[in-house]
C-alpha cells in the first residue's frame, strides 16, 4: 500500500502541470471561502469589541444602526444634532449614573476628532469591560489640549507636547483649517483595537472655541478670535452629536429608552449598542450568507474541475493501471491510488489556501483597519475556518472517490490488457 501511495505521488508529479492548474483553482477557491469567513468573523469581533458597558447611545432620531455607526465608529455623518438642553435633561434623570456628550465633525489628517469630556476616559469601556489606559500623559484639562489614540500617535509620530491643528469637516484635506488655534497633545492612549485608536479627543469646549469665528461652515470674513481671547466667551456648546449613557441599574434600560424616545423637547433616539449591532448583523447576515454560499460554490466548481481532470487523465492512464495490475496491484490499490491523488491535491490546495488567507490578511490588515475599522487579527484560524477547511477536504474526498471508483471498475474490466 505504501508502494502504491509512493507511485501515486510520483505519477501525480509527472502530471504536475495539469494537476498544478487544478491545484491553483482549489487554492484560490479555498482562499476566497476562508477570507469571506475570516472577514465576517473579525468584522463582528472588532465591531462588538468596540463598545461595552454603555447602556444607551442617544442621538437625533435616525436609524439605530446609523446612530451607532457615527457615535461609536465615527463612520458616516449625523443627520442632526441634539440640543444641549435635551442632553442635560437626560443626564439629570435619576436613573442615569453617568452621561458623556460626544461632538463629531472635525478631523485631523484623516482621523476623526471627538469633542467630549475628560469623563469619557473614565467611563468608556471596550472589549471585556476594559477601561482606557494612557501610555503617556493624561486627559485634557484645558481648552486647547488633545488626547490622541495609539494609532494616531504611531502613524503621525506624535509624542506628548506635539502641536497639531484640526480641520473642519472630514477627509484628508478637510474643508478648511483651524490653523489659528493649535492644540497640544497632552496624552496618548494605549492601543485598544477599536475606533478610539484612530481618534483625536479634545474637550467639548474646544469644539465650540474652534467655531466661534465660523458661520455656516466657513470662517467669518474679517473676524478672527485669537486663542488667548477664547476664554472670554461662553464655551458651553449649544448642541452635541450624541451621548453615551450609563445607568445605575441595568433593569431601567428599557424604561429609560422609552423615556428618551418619547422625549418632549425634540425627537431623540436611544439605542442599546449591543441590540443595534445585532440588528446590523441580522441585516447583513443575508449578504454574508450569500457571499459564503457563492464562495462554497466556487470551491465545488474547483473540486469538480479536479474530478474532471482525474477522470480525463484516467483514460490516458489505462496502460499505467494495467501495468500496475500486472505487477500485483489489486483493484483496491488502484482505487486507493486515484482517491489518494485527488485527496492529496485537495488537501494541499486547502492548506495552501489557508496559508494564502493568512498571508493575504496580514497584508490587507492595515488597509482594512484604516478603511473599514475592521481589526483583522494575526491569529490561528478560527473554529469556523477550520470547519470550512474540513468541509473542503471532505468534499474533495467525495470528489476523488469518483475517479477512484472508475479506476476500480476499469481495472476489473481491463484486467491486464487495456482496451483502448
Amino acid at each position, binding site marked *: 500500500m505504501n508502494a502504491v501511495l509512493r507511485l501515486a505521488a510520483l*505519477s501525480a508529479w509527472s502530471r504536475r502541470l495539469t494537476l498544478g492548474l487544478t491545484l491553483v483553482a482549489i487554492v484560490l477557491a479555498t482562499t476566497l471561502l476562508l477570507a469571506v469567513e475570516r472577514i465576517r468573523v473579525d468584522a463582528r469581533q472588532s465591531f462588538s469589541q468596540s463598545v461595552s458597558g454603555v447602556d444607551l447611545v442617544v442621538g437625533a432620531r435616525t436609524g439605530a444602526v446609523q446612530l451607532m455607526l457615527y457615535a461609536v465608529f465615527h463612520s458616516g455623518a449625523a443627520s442632526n444634532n441634539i440640543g444641549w438642553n435635551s442632553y442635560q435633561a437626560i443626564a439629570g434623570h435619576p436613573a442615569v449614573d453617568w452621561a458623556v456628550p460626544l461632538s463629531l465633525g472635525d478631523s485631523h489628517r484623516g482621523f476623526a476628532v471627538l469633542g467630549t469630556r475628560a469623563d469619557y476616559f473614565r467611563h468608556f469601556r471596550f472589549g471585556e469591560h476594559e477601561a482606557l489606559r494612557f501610555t503617556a500623559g493624561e486627559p485634557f484639562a484645558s481648552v486647547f489640549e488633545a488626547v490622541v489614540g495609539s494609532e494616531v500617535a504611531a502613524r503621525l509620530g506624535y509624542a506628548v507636547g506635539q502641536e497639531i491643528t484640526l480641520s473642519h469637516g472630514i477627509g484628508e484635506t478637510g474643508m478648511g483649517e483651524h490653523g489659528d488655534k493649535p492644540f497640544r497633545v497632552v496624552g496618548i492612549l494605549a492601543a485598544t483595537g477599536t475606533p478610539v485608536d484612530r481618534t483625536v479627543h479634545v474637550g467639548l469646549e474646544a469644539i465650540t472655541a474652534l467655531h466661534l469665528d465660523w458661520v455656516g461652515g466657513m470662517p467669518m470674513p474679517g473676524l478672527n478670535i485669537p486663542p488667548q481671547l477664547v476664554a472670554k466667551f461662553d464655551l458651553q456648546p449649544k448642541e452635541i452629536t450624541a451621548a453615551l449613557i450609563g445607568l445605575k441599574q441595568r433593569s431601567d434600560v428599557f424604561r429609560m429608552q422609552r423615556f428618551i424616545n418619547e422625549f418632549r423637547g425634540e425627537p431623540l433616539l436611544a439605542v442599546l449598542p449591543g441590540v443595534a449591532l445585532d440588528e446590523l448583523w441580522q441585516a447583513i447576515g443575508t449578504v454574508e450568507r450569500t457571499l459564503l454560499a457563492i464562495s462554497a460554490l466556487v470551491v465545488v466548481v474547483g473540486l469538480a474541475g479536479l474530478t474532471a481532470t482525474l477522470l480525463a487523465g484516467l483514460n490516458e492512464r489505462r496502460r499505467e493501471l494495467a*501495468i500496475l495490475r500486472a*505487477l500485483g496491484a489489486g483493484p483496491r490499490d488502484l482505487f486507493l491510488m486515484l482517491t489518494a491523488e485527488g485527496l492529496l491535491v485537495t488537501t494541499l490546495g486547502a492548506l495552501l489556501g489557508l496559508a494564502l488567507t493568512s498571508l493575504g490578511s496580514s497584508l490587507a490588515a492595515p488597509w482594512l483597519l484604516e478603511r473599514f475599522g475592521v481589526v483583522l487579527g494575526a491569529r490561528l484560524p478560527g473554529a469556523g475556518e477550520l470547519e470550512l477547511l474540513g468541509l473542503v477536504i471532505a468534499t474533495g474526498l467525495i470528489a476523488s472517490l469518483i475517479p477512484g471508483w472508475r479506476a476500480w471498475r476499469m481495472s476489473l474490466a481491463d484486467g*491486464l490488457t487495456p482496451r483502448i
Partner: protein
Amino acid sequence: MSALRITDLLFRWPRQSAPCLDIPRFELARGERVFLHGPSGSGKSTLLGLLGGVAVPQAGRIELLGQDLAQLRSHARDRFRADHIGFLFQQFNLLPWLSALDNVLLPCTFSARRKQRAEPDPRTAAKRLLTQLDLVAELWPQPAAELSVGQQQRVAAARALIGQPEFLIADEPTSALDTERQQIFIDLLLRETAAVGATLIFVSHDRRLAAHFDRTVALDEINRVKPGAVS
C-alpha cells in the same frame, strides 16, 4: 510437480452468453519454454488474465506452481501474481514517468518475495539484468518515455525477470520490433529465462518465431471454442 496445470477450464466474459475459453486440459512442465500462438481474438489475452489471476473461470481448475488459483481470495491472487509471475506486454510496458532503473525495480516494491530473491540486492540485480540485456548504463536514469521501443522492451524484460519469478508470461512482446531486433530480443529473453530456470509462455500470432522454443502450442488445439465464435 508441473508449473501449470489446467483442467476443464470454462470461461465466459460477463454479459456474453457463449464461453470464450473451454480448455479440457493443458499442462506445462517447470522450466519449459512454450510458444503459444493463435489469431487475434482467439482468447490469448483472456487466458493470460486467467493465469495472472485477474479473472476467475466459471468452472475448472488452474493450478500454478501447485497452487489452485480459485482457492485464493482476490487479494491473495494479486500477491501470488506479484510473487511468482513476470509479465511482458506488447509495448507501453513501462511507467513513462519512472526511470528505466526504477521501472525494473517495481516488482520488488510490490513483492517482498521478489525483493528478497533479487540478489544480492534489488538495485544490483536490476543493473546486472539491464547490462545482460545490453542496455548501456547512461540510459538507466532516463525516464522510460525517452527510450526507444527496443530499449523499452529490454527494460520490460529486465523488470519481468527481476527477483527470479518462476513464471514468465510474454504477450506479443516483439510485435513492435523489426525482424532483426525480434530475433535478438527473443534470444536474450530465452537466455535469461533459462538462466533463472523459469517457465516461459510466449504468446504471438507470428508463427515464424516458434522455432526458438521447446514446444509450440496452438490455442485452437487446446481450446474447444473456435475463433470467430466469440467477438
